[in-house]
Every structure is written in C-alpha cells, then in structure tokens.
C-alpha cells in the first residue's frame, strides 16, 4: 500500500487533484446554470416529451463531457506511469527496496484507474443530481452507466500503462489519445452506417470497437443515462449522435474486461522483462 499512498500523494501534490477539482467545480456550476435555463425555457414552450428530450440531451451531453475529462485524465496519468519514472531515476531508488515490479506497477496503475473512476462517480453523481433537482430527471440505470465508464477508464489506463513501459510518456499518451479518437470516429461511422443502412461502415465501427473499446463503452453507458421515456421513443436512426441506442451486449462487456485485463498482463510482462 506504500506505493498507493505515494502515488496519491504525487497526484495531490502535483496539483492534479486541485486543478481537477477547480475545473470540475466550474464545469458543474456552468452545467447547473445552463441546464436550469435550458430546461425551464423548454418546459415553458413545448410538450412534456420535448422537454424530457431537452433534459435528456443536456444531461447526456454533460455526462459526455465528464467522460471525456475522465478519459483524458486516465490517459495522461497512465502514459506517465513508467517511462518518466525510469528516465528521472525516481524508480531505481524505490525498486531497490524489497518490492516486486509487479506489485509496484499494480499499485501505481491501480491508483490511477481508481482516481479516474472516482472522478467519474463523483461527477456523474453531481450531474444527475442537478438534472434530478431541476427537471426531475431519472436515468435508466446510473449505476450500470458508472460501472461501464469505470471500465472505460480501466481500459485506457491498462493500455496507457503498457505503452508507457515501452515508449516515452509523451509517445504513449499520443498513441492512446489517437486510438481514443479513432474509436470515437468509428463510433460515429457505425451510427452513420446504421442510419444509411451501410453494412461496411457498421462493420468498421464494430471492428474498431474491438480494437479499442473506449467509445463503445461510452455508448453503452450513455444508453443507461437516458431517461426511460426518451429511450423508449427513439432508436439509433433518430437518437442523439454518439449516444448509444441500446444496452451493450454481455459479450462486449466481457471482451472489454478481458481487454483491460490483457493489457494489464502485457504491461506487467513488459515491465518485468525490461532493463531499468
């Protein structure tokens, strides 16, 4: 647990937590104001379904921003997990102690994943709370959504950590962010494929979501964040772009868990074999 403490302290003292908290608080205030104004004007001028749709749109976009911030936090933390520690020489002093490399890496990457997941939990809770108070918003299953988003950051942390064993921190970060962006585009392509009934586009989306499941996990989570009324009335063709229209399959969730686990094992193997 010493490395967990050390890593938390690093995050705290490098202002990651402070800056994160300040920006997030500002974001929540902005969201509260925007949601309040937007929902009240929608409620005044439109029918109940339309105001529910407006509430859903604003809540899901707010949560999308949270997902985005958490994903970047996970990538930036994880891509600096190993290489900068070796380059600076900080790692050598610690690994000369009776601690295995596996334990060090698991504690460090685990702390990063936990930080990003905790961020998601707090911010999603705050957004849903604001939407609930202002609009009586009630998502299909916030618990499942948060679990899927936590899995998304776990995927990114595992991948980023593995790459940070082999590449410099900067290069690892760029690769994971590029893959995250590719997944995002592939997700859009999949939806466009569904709308246009183009199977080739759809298939590209599916393949990329297997190569890097981050965006597909977001879409799975976003489905659970919709209000039930809205979800029942829409489908992929007429829903919000880059928001899921259905629950993710069990097979895909299992694949994502295996993906995160697999990259964690790769990270461990690469790290144990590396000369420091």
């Amino acid at each position, binding site marked *: 647990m*010493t490395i967990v403490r050390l890593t938390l302290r*690093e995050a705290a003292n490098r202002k990651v937590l402070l800056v994160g908290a300040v920006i997030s608080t500002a974001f929540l205030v902005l969201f509260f104001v925007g949601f309040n104004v937007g929902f009240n004007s929608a409620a005044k001028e439109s029918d109940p379904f339309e105001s529910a749709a407006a509430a859903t749109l604003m809540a899901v976009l707010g949560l999308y921003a949270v997902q985005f911030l958490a994903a970047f936090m996970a990538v930036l933390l994880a891509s600096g997990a190993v290489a900068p520690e070796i380059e600076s020489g900080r790692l050598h002093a*610690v690994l*000369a102690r009776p*601690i295995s490399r596996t334990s060090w890496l698991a504690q460090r990457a685990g702390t990063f994943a936990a930080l990003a997941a905790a961020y998601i939990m707090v911010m999603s809770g705050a957004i849903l709370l604001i939407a609930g108070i202002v609009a009586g918003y009630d998502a299909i299953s916030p618990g499942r959504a948060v679990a899927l988003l936590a899995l998304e950051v776990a995927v990114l942390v595992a991948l980023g950590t593995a790459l940070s064993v082999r590449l410099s921190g900067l290069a690892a970060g760029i690769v994971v962010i590029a893959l995250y962006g590719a997944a995002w585009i592939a997700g859009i392509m999949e939806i466009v494929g569904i709308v246009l009934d183009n199977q080739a586009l759809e298939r590209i989306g599916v393949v990329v979501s297997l190569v890097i499941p981050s965006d597909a996990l977001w879409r799975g989570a976003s489905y659970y964040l919709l209000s039930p009324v809205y979800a029942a009335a829409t489908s992929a063709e007429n829903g919000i772009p880059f928001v899921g229209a259905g629950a993710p399959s069990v097979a895909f969730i299992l694949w994502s868990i295996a993906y995160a686990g697999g990259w964690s094992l790769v990270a461990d193997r690469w790290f144990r074999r590396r000369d*420091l």
Partner: protein
Amino acid sequence: MTTTDGSATAGSTSDVPPGVMTDPAVPIAAVGLRKTYRDRTVLDGVDLHVGAGQVVGLLGPNGAGKTTTVKSLLGMVHLDGGSASVLGRPAGDPAARRALGYLPEQFQYPGWLDGRQVLATHARLIGLPRSEHDRAISDALHLVGLAGRGGDRVSGYSKGMQQRLGLATAVLGSPTLVILDEPTSALDPIGRREVRDLIRALRDRGTAVLLNSHLLGEVEQVCDHIVILDRGRVVRSGALSDIAVGAEVRVGVARLDDGALAILQGFGRVTARDGETALVALDDVAAVPALAAALVRGGHGIRELVPVQRSLEDVFVDLVGPNEGEDR
C-alpha cells in the same frame, strides 16, 4: 545453507544456479556475469565477491560496466549469463533487498515530498516498525549532514542535497549491505570528505559496502578490496595493499649486462633502465625471492632489490591504458 565445499544444498536454494554461494552472511557473490545489449557486450564474465563487513571498490573507466554490474545485483538488469546472490538470495528476488541500501548513479527523489517523507516512504518499503521510523529517519539525516533540513521540500534541495538524501535512504534502518553508485558525483570537496567518513562509519558498524566510483583517490582512501573493470571484464581484483604495492621492483646489480637483463626478462617486463638499475614489472608479485636467487645463481651481485610503491592511479592507468578511458 551451503556445504563446506560451497555448493548449494537442496531445499530453499534449489532455484539458485550452481556455483553461487547462498550463504546469507555473504553480502555479494557473483560469478561469470554476462550482459549483451544487441551486439555490444557490456559484461563479459564478471566475478565479484563482497564479504561481510568488507568495503569493496568497483573501479573502471566510463562504460566499463560498473553500473550494469550493480543493477544486475539489484535485479534491475537481466543477465544473459552467470549468477549472482545478494545476502543469500538470488539477485532479483525482492527478499535479497530486505537489508540492502542503494544510492543510484542517476538519482532523483519526489520533489513534492519533504526529506522526512521520502525517508518515511523508504522506511515503510523496508518494513521498519512504525515506532522506529522517527528515530531511524533522524539518524539517517544526521549521518549525511541533512539534520535540520528534513522538513524542507525536496524540490528546494540542491543536487548535492538530493545526493545526501539518497545516501540517507541508503543507510536508513542499518542495512547489512550498502551499494553506492558514484556517491560523490554532485558533492563539493567537503561533501566528498564527509562521504568518505560516512563509509568509514559504515565499515565500523560492520556494514558491507560496494562503492562504485571512478575517483581513484576516493576508493584508495576507504576501500580494503578493489575490483577493476575494463570493457566488461575484471582486469584486477584483490586487497588494496596487494594491488597497489609490489608489482614492480627496482633491481640494482653490479653490472647490468645482457645476461642480467635476460634473467630479469624471465620474470617480467623491464620498464625502465638507468645505469646499472632496472625497473621490472613482475608477472608474479610473489616471484621476488626467486628473482633474487636467479640473479645470484647467474653471478650478478645484487646492490638493491626494492618493491616499488605504486599509487592506485599507476596501476589503473597500466591496466586500462592512458587514452582508452573515453569513447566507450
């Protein structure tokens, strides 16, 4: 753990390759260490032994393989051949590092912690009981001359103070073995002297020290054993007194003719000649009496036969070559 002939016995040592002592009382026993990076051989059969309470200096020019040797003992570099045990455990086993302190050549400590917090982290990592933390940390800070600065953030430390902090982590909790890799690289002359005093203090406590350095004077002043590495090989090892003294003798005879020279050349290389006196670099230090006997048998009257005191630097330059220390 070991039989009288030094071979490993069955049981807990079954994972240790043959040839390596697994006696926990032996701080370092390494045999035939080999390491190759792509096509560059960094270690080419290095043997290294550090006995209990010994202070051993590992010397060599830049790129000789000193740091790689040390890192392999700590399990940071994977060997391609040979075997090493540290404090009775195979090198690389975390248990081998339980009673070991290490100052890396390239050191940096988290700038967001203060000195005491860095040491507290290390105290937890070595499993020091919580009740002993305060005293052990204060002792270590005092020993390296950082008493009074422990509450300052490391980011405000000079490079020299960071190196002192590294020394403090290395001596924290009274380890059995301390490995110091270029421990004075960031220190001024006074700091260097203090480190020499620190190493002597460790020796007085019975702590074994492996000192990695290219500062010959530093090694000469504190080490009792020396291993000289060059291009990944051990070119000389032994007690300092054996290495620095006696490999060369000054021989004065009544008449230094071809016959006398031939006899001298049978025992080594004649490195200098002045009148009837010659300097002979002996192949075997122990051959002085035999040399004397041979001269007498050959009818050469001996005027003087004096072992020449050589500095470690002379030995080092002789072994490694004057111009070969760079670019490797």
